[in-house]
């Protein structure tokens, strides 16, 4: 493929992925408010548009028009840079995620992925590691006791659970033999006995999936691990001093991280875009993306369901869970998978 066409295709794919991701972030917020509302026996947003579907637009307008106040006592360069760091790295990690097989346009085969790197999974882990800085620097630059404590707690939590996150992925790597996300999904094609799909969760990675889920909930600072940013604790944690657009950026970063985690769980444990294919050729090109989207929706619903149901951990319980339970469990999973594969 000529280089200019490759660059053009990459730019178009990046633009599409970005637009779809930002819309998904906005409507994940809507979904959360509706689902949590119904769980709490109330309606959720209903006024703005049918079923409150235009609520995210109203929220966006609110964030844009709210006064963007920068308190005088903050360390200004980092105060402005921290939400930028959080949101940039949250949006970048989506670039490694494959959404489906290759589509053929005008004779060229274009993979449905912004870029396919040999070490795609490691790059996503690296981007998650850098995302910790957004939280830590936000807490520090706000020059506020509560922000500093909340920021330190949040970043210590994220760094601690990164280890279990990485180890829970090693089981999947041992089974598929490659870091490239496309190869991992392709190794999950096919069926057992004709109807049970050969997803990693059915071929022995159930504990790995459990570890990944717990670690991912802690990485994205969601209930039951959201002590550092709960409204009833420490004022509001690291984003106390932020208002309007900067707060919206932290918000977007959190939901974009949720979507990335859901994408990764789908790719690694649930077969990615593998699903029953039927119909004419054009439908067969679109269906994998549809299955992928359906699985991501299921994961987001699980996230929101857990949020509406469970209480939150205290900070020492949270750290003890990460270091004393989840880390040994992930290590045991790696060892068990290695022994099983070696035989």
């Amino acid at each position: 493929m000529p280089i200019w066409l490759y660059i053009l295709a990459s730019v178009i794919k990046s633009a599409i992925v970005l637009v779809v991701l930002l819309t998904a972030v906005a409507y994940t917020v809507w979904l959360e408010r509706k689902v949590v509302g119904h769980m709490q026996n109330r309606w959720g947003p209903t006024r703005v548009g049918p079923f409150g579907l235009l609520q995210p637009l109203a929220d966006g307008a609110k964030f844009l028009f709210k006064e963007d106040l920068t308190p005088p006592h903050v360390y200004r360069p980092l105060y402005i840079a921290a939400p930028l760091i959080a949101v940039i790295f949250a949006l970048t990690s989506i670039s490694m995620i494959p959404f489906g097989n290759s589509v053929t346009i005008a004779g060229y085969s274009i993979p449905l992925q912004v870029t396919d790197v040999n070490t795609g999974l490691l790059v996503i882990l690296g981007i998650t590691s850098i995302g910790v800085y957004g939280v830590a620097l936000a807490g520090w630059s706000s020059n506020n006791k509560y922000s500093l404590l909340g920021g330190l707690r949040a970043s210590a939590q994220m760094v601690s659970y990164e280890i279990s996150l990485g180890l829970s992925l090693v089981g999947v790597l041992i089974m598929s033999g490659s870091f490239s996300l496309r190869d991992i999904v392709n190794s999950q094609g096919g069926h057992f006995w004709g109807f049970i799909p050969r997803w990693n969760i059915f071929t022995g990675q159930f504990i790995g999936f459990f570890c990944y889920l717990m670690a991912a909930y802690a990485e994205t600072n969601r209930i039951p691990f959201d002590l550092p940013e709960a409204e009833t604790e420490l004022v509001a944690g690291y984003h106390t001093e932020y208002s309007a657009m900067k707060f919206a950026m932290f918000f977007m970063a959190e939901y974009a991280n949720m979507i990335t985690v859901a994408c990764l769980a789908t790719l690694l444990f649930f077969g990615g875009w593998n699903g029953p294919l039927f119909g004419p050729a054009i439908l067969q090109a679109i269906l994998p993306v549809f299955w992928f989207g359906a699985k991501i929706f299921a994961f987001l619903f699980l996230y929101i369901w857990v949020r509406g149901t469970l209480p939150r951990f205290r900070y020492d319980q949270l750290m003890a869970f990460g270091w004393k339970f989840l880390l040994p469990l992930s290590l045991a999973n790696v060892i068990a998978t290695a022994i099983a594969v070696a035989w």
Partner: protein
Amino acid sequence: MLSVHLILFLAFGAVAVAGAVNLLAQTHPINSALSLIAVMAALAGEYMLLGAEFLAAVQVIVYAGAIMVLFVFTIMLLNAGVEERTKGSRVATMFGIPGVLLGSVLLGWVVLRHSGTEAVAAGALPGAPAVIGQLLFHEFLLPFEITSILILIAIMGAVVLASKPPSAPARKVD
């Protein structure tokens, strides 16, 4: 002559050198820490250019994503402020800065003039994780095990050093 490889090398190199010089120029340690993170990210790009893709990812995950977080935590917890100016020697500054610059320019000129022009191609030696894993667990198994013991000792030492010294006799608290 001006290939994409050279342009990328110069771009990453410029970011790395700018970060290193900024580390020296800044007075507040947090700015120095952020410059060092920029240096490490630029070096990860350089490793990618040389084909060491696993090392580039490990550099970002371990160095920029864990070790520097440790530095930033320490700066935040100890509330490190702007560095105080200590009494320096004016003679040293007057002769030192031009001297260092002259010496380094001379050294760089000698290195560039007297080395061969054989180039290192982009992605010359693909360092795929599988190949590095093979080497790590076969030829380099002994250093691997020794460094893992070293890290264990370092963790224990760090925990002991940073813990509060026992001040009052411990009361039985439930």
